């Protein structure tokens, strides 16, 4: 009786340990986890906690800091430049996500077909993605020059009057998006191309037997099947576009005036040019919340588009 109950207790205890810590858990392995844990805490968790902490202070580098509660956040709601920068960020992001996704998908459909020198053209197509963003930005800055840039020269060849590109508040964001499109469309193409390669052939065979046209097959078979891949590309592009800094900073620094000042640029100015660390930290918190919301929306859409 006693032996039986002891055995039962041991079995129950072992089962509990397995259920809470998972099978294969061994305390001896813990030291192997600590280095990664410490690094994660140091480079991800601590900066976040410190950023949250700083956002409650009025702290300018070189001056004493003062606790101000939510004052930095309240100030953000009345900071016209910050509100304007949210608009610029969303405008830039929308274009910098949608256009590469459309062009990248079209490119993937083309490169999925068989034609001579396909491999060579694919390799050429993905070259922009390999270039350093700052180098890309410097080259485009020269190309955008209204008097001496090659873009206006090319337009003149087909009789189109010269444009101001990044030197006009009206065209600066679309021009910056053009750089993003050139740079990152190949990434979308690669992701979608991977999706196309994994598609089953049976639905197409059935569709052909039923007399479906090429467009109908694309619209009703290909597109729904590659939608999860397009949405993954969209999520990656969106996070990249929201983070975009180097290209904008090198080409316009947020100008003309504040016409291309995104949250990142304004945040950078506040933190590293004006040294308003507390205020910039509050801005970071708001920006982080914005990124989370937008990412969740896209992930939700991806979930809905998943193959069942």
């Amino acid at each position, binding site marked *: 009786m006693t032996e039986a109950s002891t055995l039962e207790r041991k079995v129950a205890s072992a089962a509990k340990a397995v259920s809470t810590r998972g099978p294969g858990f061994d305390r001896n392995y813990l030291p192997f986890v600590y280095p990664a844990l410490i690094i994660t805490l140091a480079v991800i968790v601590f900066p976040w906690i410190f950023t949250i902490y700083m956002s409650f202070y009025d702290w300018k580098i070189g001056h004493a800091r003062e606790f101000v509660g939510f004052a930095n956040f309240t100030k953000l709601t009345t900071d016209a430049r910050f509100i304007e920068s949210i608009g610029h960020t969303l405008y830039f992001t929308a274009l910098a996500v949608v256009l590469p996704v459309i062009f990248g998908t079209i490119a993937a459909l083309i490169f999925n077909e068989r034609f001579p020198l396909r491999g060579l053209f694919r390799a050429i197509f993905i070259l922009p993605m390999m270039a350093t963003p700052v180098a890309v930005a410097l080259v485009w800055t020269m190309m955008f020059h*209204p*008097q001496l840039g090659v873009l206006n020269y090319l337009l003149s060849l087909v009789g189109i009057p010269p444009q101001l590109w990044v030197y006009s508040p009206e065209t600066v964001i679309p021009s910056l998006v053009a750089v993003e499109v050139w740079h990152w469309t190949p990434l979308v193409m690669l992701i979608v191309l991977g999706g196309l390669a994994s598609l089953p052939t049976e639905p197409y065979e059935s569709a052909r037997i039923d007399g479906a046209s090429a467009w109908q097959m694309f619209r009703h078979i290909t597109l729904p099947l590659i939608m999860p891949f397009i949405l993954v590309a969209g999520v990656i592009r969106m996070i990249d576009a929201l983070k975009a800094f180097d290209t904008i900073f090198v080409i316009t*620094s947020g100008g003309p005036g*504040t016409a291309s000042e995104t949250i990142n640029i304004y945040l950078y100015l506040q933190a*590293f*040019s*004006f040294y308003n660390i507390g205020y910039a930290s509050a801005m970071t918190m708001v920006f982080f919340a914005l990124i989370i919301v937008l990412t969740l929306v896209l992930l939700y859409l991806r979930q809905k588009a998943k193959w069942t």
Partner: protein
Amino acid sequence: MDDRKTRFTRRTALKIGAGAAGVFAAPAIMKAARAQTGGFNWKKFSGQSIEVSLTLGPRADVLRRHEKEFTDLTGIKVGSEAVPEQQHRQQVVIQFNSGNPQFDVISISWHVQKRLVGKSKWLADMKPLLADASLTAPEYDFADMTAGGIRWATQGDGRMDTLPLSIDPWMIYWNKELFAAKGLAFPKTFDDIVMAAEKLTDKASGQYGWVSRGLKNANVPVWTSFMLGHDMDPVNPKTVTLQTTTPEAIAAAEYYKKLNKDFAPPGTVGFNWNESQTSFSQGKIGMWLDGIGFAPPLEDPTKSRVVGKVGYGIMPNGPKTKNSATFGDGIGIAAASKKKEAAYLYCQWATGKQMASRLLQSGGGSPCRASTYTDKDVIAGLKLPREWLTCLQESTAIGRPGLPEIVPVTEFRDIFGIGLTNTIGGADAKTEMTKATEAFTPILQKSEAS
């Protein structure tokens, strides 16, 4: 047989040894003799190593190119880096705030960082070092430094936390060929500038009378250049209050707007100095207002189409006075440095007569040493036109700080820069300056209160 002729005695060995030692030691003795010029021992801190942080540009280029010369002279090893201006300024603040900067010597842009470093006392006071005869070489000749340089280097409390390196006055580059084609002479007044710019502008042929910085932040010195001619500083130096909505400041903004909106090439709104330089060097721009350090690329046939056609004009008379907006650099020693003496020797070498001559000859700036401009050998070695030198000297003589001596200079430039950029787009100058003043006033007040 007398074997003395063939016998190798101990005395002979000593003689040969002494002779050989003399031959091998001669260069070292000569070097030591050179190092002790006028009884001053440059080798006092031989064997030490110092770190030098410089702002990337022609001044840093000259210093780094001749660094080995300093090591040969002093035996002090130098590790130097030249960082782009904007990043360098950020690095300075962050490193000083850490309390343990990684450099011993640092170059400072007076027009942006002077008040900040002065208020924070991040740099060692140079005055006690200059007064120490055991540390200051007699040939350093501090009395040779220009009054303007010393004024820039001296803080409000009397401390001198940098040694003057160079001053950069603003002037007008003008295309003589375009002026001659229209029968025009270089402007004598601000109104003449506008008139000449109008006559030189022919938009149909892509020719424009004027170019200057339109990009926010970078454009503020263009505006202040016109403000100084109205005998007005953007910030009152005594009361440290803004004077940016005064009639003079508005009039200066109107000049800025008129020239950049009506007579400058399309896209000026996003131009910094590099776009302005590129445009001017193509030969289709009449005048370009900017710092004097751009002459070398304009006179370089591989980079410019206006070689030999460039006039170097002093800023014309404003309605009240004639001033050239000036900007400058100094070099100082981190107060936290443990090698202040060795660092001080570097600062002496960097701001000495020889380096000043080299800086002038490179065309990269205007050294703060009076003797440089009267030394015939230095002038003979100058690769730029004499007109450039004359312009440099005369502009320096009428120099006046182009930016206010306040801590939040960058914010000042950013906020007023946006207003100025908006005027190029057609916004009203007075409205923009008023708006900028309202936005910047609390920032300045807070800064002064702390």
